[in-house]
């Protein structure tokens, strides 16, 4: 067990890779009553095509990772949620584009729920009937998100940007893909993605890490797993052009919403990716927030209200920046975004603004260490990305004006896609 201390952020964690390949990360948070443990596989909604070490390819319908997440909550002898509740713990799970995570929190003893977490994630017990029954629940869930205008706007933006990439689907897939998922597909997907050597277990609690590690080692040494050929997500080839340059849809909302997104190349190297993402974020904050003097004018001119923002997201095989707003002046908003992008492309940044933003992000990073959720999920993602938890902040510290100039070049290649949500009033 390796102890890793970070003096600057005053945090300590312990790491170990077990014999079966399961990697364990334990954060020690003294004084806390609560504990949180999360078991994560890098199987996400993006994994529609995978390949193993022997070159064998696997293809799955959209939404399979999320479907599997739902079905994991059944065990041979009863329901997982009930079992955790009986132990005084809360269990839950989520699926993102890049991972599926199962976690529990408790303010009581850790040992029993921790073993249960390992046990239920490491066993799949489903049959035809239970798979069919789940489809109704999942489709209700998809419909719920579809009726939320914000998440729908984001979904349509992704669908506009990508022709092939699985980002064009909702994480849960769609009605048809969910209906098409079979028991065999779920079992195969489980078999190749839930092997301990693929997964990471992250815990945050006040207890002695040595004791916890012992519980985990004992639980794992009692189980046998077949040898696994390593599995990898297949990347998708995307053309530079978006799938749809413009797209308009309507919902029962009061004001129109617009998103303007630019499709960028992905970045293979993780450090480079984090650096470019920071640089673009700095530019966005400098040119499209209250730090930019015209921002107030845009509000005063009612180009948009407080529902306005921007995002940057870079992955291995995809990238995008997105501006969105609730607006009655859509043409004017488009102009402003185009002008903003031009300014950002110059890569000019005031030294003082750069320092100011670094201060802000440092404060935010410190505060995020209060959040067990942030800690566990970031730990898992960093592990899958083979990077250290705090390296993102080190990268930020080192960023200078030249880095920002370089990253700004990337923006010049961006192809634009505009999605408009128009009100469709009730009769």
């Amino acid at each position: 067990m390796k102890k890793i201390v970070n003096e600057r952020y005053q945090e300590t964690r312990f790491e170990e890779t077990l014999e079966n390949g399961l990697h364990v990360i334990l954060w020690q948070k003294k004084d806390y009553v609560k504990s949180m443990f999360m078991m994560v596989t890098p199987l996400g909604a993006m994994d529609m095509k995978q390949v193993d070490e022997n070159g064998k390819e696997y293809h799955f319908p959209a939404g399979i990772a999320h479907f599997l997440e739902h079905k994991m909550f059944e065990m041979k002898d009863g329901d997982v949620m009930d079992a955790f509740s009986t132990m005084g713990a809360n269990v839950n799970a989520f699926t993102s584009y890049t991972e599926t995570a199962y976690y529990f929190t408790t303010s009581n003893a850790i040992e029993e729920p921790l073993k249960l977490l390992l046990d239920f994630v490491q066993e799949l017990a489903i049959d035809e009937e239970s798979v069919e029954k789940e489809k109704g629940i999942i489709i209700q869930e998809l419909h719920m998100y579809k009726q939320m205008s914000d998440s729908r706007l984001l979904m349509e933006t992704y669908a506009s940007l990508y022709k092939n990439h699985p980002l064009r689907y909702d994480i849960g897939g769609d009605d048809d893909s969910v209906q098409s998922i079979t028991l065999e597909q779920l079992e195969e997907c489980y078999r190749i993605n839930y092997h301990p050597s693929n997964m990471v277990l992250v815990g945050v609690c006040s207890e002695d890490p040595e004791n916890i590690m012992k519980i985990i080692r004992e639980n794992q040494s009692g189980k046998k797993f077949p040898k696994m050929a390593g599995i990898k997500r297949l990347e998708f080839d995307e053309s530079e052009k978006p799938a749809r340059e413009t797209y308009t849809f309507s919902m029962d909302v009061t004001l129109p919403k617009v998103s303007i997104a630019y499709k960028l190349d992905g970045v293979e190297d993780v450090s480079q990716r984090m650096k470019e993402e920071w640089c673009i974020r700095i530019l966005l904050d400098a040119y499209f927030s209250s730090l930019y003097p015209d921002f107030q004018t845009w509000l005063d001119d009612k180009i948009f209200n407080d529902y306005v923002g921007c995002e940057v997201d870079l992955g291995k095989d995809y990238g995008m920046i997105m501006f969105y707003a609730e607006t009655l002046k859509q043409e004017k908003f488009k102009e402003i975004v185009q002008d903003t992008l031009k300014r950002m492309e110059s890569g000019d940044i005031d030294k003082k603004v750069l320092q100011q933003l670094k201060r802000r992000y440092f404060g935010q990073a410190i505060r995020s260490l209060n959040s067990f959720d942030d800690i566990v999920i970031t730990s898992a993602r960093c592990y899958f990305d083979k990077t250290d938890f705090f390296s993102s902040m080190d990268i930020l510290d080192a960023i200078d004006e030249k880095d920002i100039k370089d990253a700004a070049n990337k923006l010049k290649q961006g192809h634009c896609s505009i999605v408009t949500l128009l009100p469709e009033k009730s009769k």
Partner: protein
Amino acid sequence: MQITNGIQVQFIPTTKFKDIGISVRFRNTLQDGKSAKRSLLALMLVDRCQKYDTKLKMSEMQDELYGATLTAQTAGFGASQIIELRSKIINPSFLNEENTLLEDTFAFLHEVIFSPLLKEEVFHENKEILLAKIKRMQDDPSQYAITCGLREAGKGTPLGISALGTYEQVEQLTLSDIQQIYQEMMKEDLIDILVCGDIEEDSILKLVKETLRFTPRNTQMQSWYCVENERKSETKRLTKHISQSYIMMTWFTHTPITDEKYYALRVANAVFGQYSTSLLFQEVREKRSLCYSIFSNLISYDGAMGVTTGIEKEHIDKTMELIQTQFHRVCEGDFSEDLLNTSKRMVINSLKASEDSMYSLMAFAYQNALLQRDYSVSDLMDMVEKVTREEVMEVMKRCEYKMGVVVTKEDDDEENCE
């Protein structure tokens, strides 16, 4: 601790957080019309102030304080409305050099509270923002169902009043309304200042006294009450152009938050619908796949309980019946000993876990102030522990079903109540 009449300060010292939180809570009566003014005032207060009279200057100041946050919330607490201004800064010990982070933050709060910029341009901008917020809440069908459900069930009582204000009320506001309500707030409101984190109480008290010098006041106010009105129970149907339908059902509990049986009601709510172990989730979702989520909630300061879920239109009647059936099962004691024990444990766990969240610690301290008592978390856990099956049945039987609101897609034969 009272620093002057009507002004209290509470410290919650702990080293477990990386930051220090300061919450200033202004309390006045929740009144139709007044609530809209106060919710707009709250937005204006954190937008700009006289000294930092642009958003740019506000951001620069907050970044100077290492990304200090400054937010405003308005909320109803039974018969009163709270405006909360909250700021969080990192623990100054993370900075290498000597610093005046705490002093600067209190000085900043002083400017925000005592020298607001109540001017036309700030007024207009924030009025637009508040109107848009209200519209967005109406756009979200589940939120819309909840708002309508409470408004309908609580007609003529504080429960029926929106702490945010209604669209029509906000639309009619003028700058002088806001200036007048600000003066009233500074003169009349009961004020609680809560500071949580790695703090040294004496020096913070000194800072509070120096920078937040509120005048004494003699306001008397009781926040909690038990909602009652003459309305007959009924189901209202509202329409929206949506595919899924939403239900909000409301009961009046007749058990105020100060009642000795209140914690039995907390357990009853947990058996009924608060958690995924509860009857509602198990029967409606797990057994029949009718919905994705279904939960019940207590609106404790008003003495009300609500159930919300989203379903397909053809299942509305069946689901509402099923919800009633589960309610009656709790009344009749038709639930297992396991479920009772699990429910108690869940409530106890959430109480325990509240000690790990700054927000919950502040909420807990504030609750003690509102109810003028000094319970500890473990006192409450004891009360939950002692709850019996008979008490759960008793408090649930006291509940009176008041209103069902259904938001669904329009049919020609349905009235549009928007």
